[in-house]
């Protein structure tokens, strides 16, 4: 059984290649069967492996071949399987399968049906390789692979240049992080002589002391990679734009799996981070500040997908916060529950967009509660889990994070307070969405309801979002155990109460209208603050001024090839000399005679001088 895990990424990959080569010639049914079936098969194999693994939870390794060997640099195409791998693979194949199924209906009328599934299958394969890799180089292959698939899928409707722009932005911004991460790999290999993740943990502990400079640099470089991929400050600006892709893509790549790769990376290399306490604090602060920044932004957006995108950025911020405070398994737990409820929300928004003539503006929706009941309940459950209302899956994971953050020495209570503020905002913006879209009067009539291929994945994800919190993660062996201390009970009660308060506020403001905030919102200060938040804290404009435009200007400056000017100068000198000498060849006899006589005199003078 264990030898078969190599097949799990291979099956979607083969399916993708088939679809690329034959795509145009296959009937739609076949394309759908191949695209969905391959991921379903991968999910099935993952399930079988899980049964096998849970019976005998011993991590194992599988080397397919040595990728390249130069001296002692010999990374393999090799997989490592432990509890963390299992969690990630289950999310990728499980949620991935549901999203593929959903896509068959969502993309039904698209001309490039085969191309869509080819990319989506390839993404699943790359993502599986990312989480299964036993060394950082193979992980990097998956890491870049999902990046390219994300690029291809964001720009899937390539005929609209704006989509291409968004796709390029997504790739290039994440590549900035990836390049830093590559430097981290160089540093780790140069210092520790291996890129195998397990061996790195051992070697790092042997070579370095807690608080050394080198592990700090290495961890910060890896963090830069994680920040890019997981859309955290300051490299998060690509994710809202990436919503240009088809909505199931946003659900799979930009909510459930790829954007959490950074969380996985840090969790996977936690042995290194434990040697660099400053890097851990950096992770926590990045997470918290991103979480708050994105939550404020989500509060002001009108586009349903952008709200969810900022919400994703914010929730991944929570995961980073968890990692930064050493709550490794809580971070991974939140990764999983977030995959459930955010995929649910994105698919739900996909259903709305699909049935509402591609409408994105929430204020043009309204009253969908009775018209799209399945989607309504999906959103209710998804938003409840996102807001971390008690007993939903999001509650369990977020609660753990907040409690463990509180226990950190020194800054713990501050992190906790920040997290609480984020939780309050989350509850407000998620239920703002629900109340505006599903209640009130209908502004646009849906032209159809969801079919079974949309309804089934939504229902299953509803179940997971509700009850996913009861799943016990098999990661006890992977991470060091957290301290057994519990904070005071009031901390726990406050953590539970805050999201409920948020929902009540949203109800009063956006549904019943009993709480009037217009006066507050219309104050000039609040107006400009809202504009500031709406624009994503002006970061896009800032980067545009700081990097994009100067780069264009630099390119324009050099376009004429200044180096060539030097060679041009040589040419010019030669031409001038040539001009002068050519003058001498005038065809006038008397000039020739003069120059001959002149020459004779010079020659004579030299000869006489020599004697």
């Amino acid at each position: 059984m264990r030898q078969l895990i190599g097949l799990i990424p291979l099956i979607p990959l083969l399916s993708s290649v088939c679809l690329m080569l034959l795509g145009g010639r296959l009937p739609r049914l076949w394309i759908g069967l191949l695209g969905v079936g391959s991921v379903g098969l991968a999910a099935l194999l993952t399930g079988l492996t899980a049964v096998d693994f849970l019976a005998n939870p011993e991590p194992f390794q599988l080397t397919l071949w040595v990728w390249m060997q130069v001296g002692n640099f010999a990374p393999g195409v090799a997989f490592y399987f432990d509890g963390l791998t299992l969690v990630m693979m289950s999310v990728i194949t499980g949620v991935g399968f549901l999203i593929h199924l959903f896509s068959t209906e969502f993309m039904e009328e698209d001309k490039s049906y085969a191309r869509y599934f080819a990319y989506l299958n390839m993404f699943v394969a790359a993502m599986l390789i990312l989480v299964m890799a036993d060394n950082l180089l193979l992980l990097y292959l998956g890491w870049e692979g999902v990046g390219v698939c994300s690029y291809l899928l964001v720009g899937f409707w390539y005929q609209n240049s704006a989509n291409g722009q968004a796709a390029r932005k997504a790739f290039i911004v994440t590549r900035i992080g990836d390049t830093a991460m590559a430097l981290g790999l160089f540093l780790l290999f140069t210092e520790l002589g291996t890129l195998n993740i397990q061996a790195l943990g051992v070697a790092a502990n042997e070579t370095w002391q807690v608080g050394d400079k080198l592990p700090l640099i290495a961890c910060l470089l890896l963090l830069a990679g994680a920040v890019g991929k997981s859309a955290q400050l300051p490299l998060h600006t690509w994710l809202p734009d990436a919503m240009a892709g088809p909505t199931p893509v946003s659900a799979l790549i930009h909510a459930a799996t790829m954007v959490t790769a950074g969380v996985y990376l840090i969790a996977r290399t936690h042995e290194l981070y434990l040697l660099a306490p400053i890097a851990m604090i950096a992770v926590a602060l990045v997470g918290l500040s991103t979480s708050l920044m994105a939550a404020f932004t989500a509060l002001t957006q009108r586009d349903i997908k952008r709200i969810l995108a900022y919400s994703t950025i914010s929730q991944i911020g929570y995961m980073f916060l968890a990692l930064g405070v050493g709550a490794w398994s809580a971070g991974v737990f939140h990764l999983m529950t977030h995959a459930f409820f955010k995929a649910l929300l994105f698919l739900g928004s996909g259903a709305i967009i699909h049935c509402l003539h591609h409408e994105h503006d929430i204020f043009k929706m309204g009253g969908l509660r009775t018209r799209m009941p399945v989607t309504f309940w999906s959103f209710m459950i998804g938003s409840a889990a996102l807001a971390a209302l008690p007993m939903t899956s999001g509650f369990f994971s977020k609660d753990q994070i907040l409690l463990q953050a509180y226990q950190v020495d020194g800054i713990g209570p501050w992190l906790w307070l920040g997290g609480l503020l984020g939780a309050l905002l989350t509850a407000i913006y998620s239920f703002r969405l629900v109340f505006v879209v599903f209640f009130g009067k209908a502004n646009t009539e849906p032209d159809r309801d969801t079919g079974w291929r949309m309804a089934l994945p939504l229902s299953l994800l509803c179940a997971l979002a509700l009850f996913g919190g009861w799943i016990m993660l098999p990661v006890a062996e992977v991470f060091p155990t957290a301290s057994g201390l519990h904070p005071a009970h009031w901390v726990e009660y406050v953590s539970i109460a805050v999201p409920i308060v948020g929902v009540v506020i949203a109800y009063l403001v956006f549904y019943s209208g009993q709480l009037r905030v217009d006066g507050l919102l219309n104050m000039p200060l609040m107006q400009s603050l809202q504009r500031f938040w709406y624009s994503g804290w002006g970061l896009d404009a800032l980067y545009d001024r700081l990097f994009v435009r100067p780069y264009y200007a630099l390119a324009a400056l050099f376009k004429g090839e200044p180096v060539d000017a030097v060679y041009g100068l040589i040419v010019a000198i030669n031409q001038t000399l040539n001009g002068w000498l050519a003058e001498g060849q005038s065809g006038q006899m008397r000039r020739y005679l003069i120059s001959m006589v002149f020459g004779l005199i010079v020659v004579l003078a030299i000869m006489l001088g020599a004697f």
Partner: protein
Amino acid sequence: MLMINLILILLVGGLLAMLSERFGSHVPRMVALAVVLLDLVYLLLALSGLPELGGLQAPVPGDPQTWLMHYRAEWIPAFGISFEFALDGISLLMVLLTLVLGAVAVSSSWTDVTTKCGFFEANLLWTLAGVLGVFMALDLFLFFLFWEVMLIPMYFMIAIWGHEQRAYAAMKFFIFTQASGLLMLVSVLTLATIHQSNTGVWSFSYFDLLNTQMAAQTAYWLMLGFFVAFVVKLPGFPFHTWLPDAHTQAPTAGSVILAGVLLKTGAYGLIRFAVPLFPEASIDFAPIALWLGAAGVVYGAVLAFAQTDFKRLIAYSSVSHMGFVLLGVYAWNQLALQGAVMQMVAHGFSTAALFMIAGSLQERLHTRDMREMGGLWHNMPRMGAVAMFFIIASLGLPGLGNFVAEFLVLLGLFQVDPWLTMIAALGLITGAAYSLLLMQRSFQGEPDESRRLNDFGTREMLTMALMMVALIGLGLYPQPVLDMAQPVLDGLLQFSATVVGGQL
């Protein structure tokens, strides 16, 4: 004899191709393809008779008996000039690359060249012959001869079949290569003279000239003569300005050969001659060479980003990619050198393919200006998908050959100079920027529905498939190439270590 035959087949084949035009203008290209394939098959058959390539001992640079093959015949005995050829793993790799890309180039001239087809194919084959000579000649005088031989037919290819500014581009290409080649000739002659005054014997043989004792100052100047000649060819910053013009103006097959093969002679020369002949001078010079390499990586990428001409953009991307080779050579350790060799092979395929796509676009649209393109994926989905593949390869996606090359170079460089590695790594970001911009401007965006364009046909798809398979193979299992180069690089590293007692 094998090595001479390889060259002779191409020289005679060129003549045949030229003469065969009288039977119809489509005959020469068939003859040319047959000749290149014959050469390739001949080489492969001969190789199967050799001992296993992977298990080779490291060839000692100074001892021809440890090489795969060695041949020597007198030519001008008075000056110790001989027909001396030798083959080791690296030259064999380059010869294979030359012949494979030679076949690709013939294929890309299939519909592109319509006038004087016979003479065109002849020039193509003669260029290949010159290149093979460069990769195999180990007599420095003979090497210089082949260095010139590959230049002249190439000049004709650009000057006769090139695009609108062909005369300017061809002349520029010729002068740059010729002038720098003269510097190398001076260095070669001086080196032989020094050797003669040291030992009393005239020789131009590589094996004799290694270890020539001379003043450090002299060695430095001679090394510079070689360096400039090779770096002009590579091309390295700031000697690269001939390349955008030559590549842009050359016919497709010319661009394929230029980018795929001719540039590699510069890289090969650095590894084979410039460093081993003057190891100590090279140590002193390495920091400068490394900075030039890093500058090339970034400068090429920025300029590629600025271009609006499809071919010119690819040409500048070559400047950027070849910067990695310069970095790899002068970092002078196993990882970086392997990366440089890998880059020579992988860049050969990826850039050749991109130039073929550029050629196909020019043929169909009669323009290279990207402002007049857009949405071509809609008109030609196959070509779009193929272009996407090679663009992604050229921006260094792991799993494809170019990534292995760039990663190894940077990893090796990091052990020598981490700060410079950071600068060179900027090439990964800027590389993504220009590559994706190329895709956006040409194949994505709003399509022009009124365009009626032929998508890639079977011949084109076959050629492209060959290069795709090569890049995937190099990316996922590069070991055969690494194993071929490994013994040679080990030998060179040991040799330089014994001469100077350490790394560069």
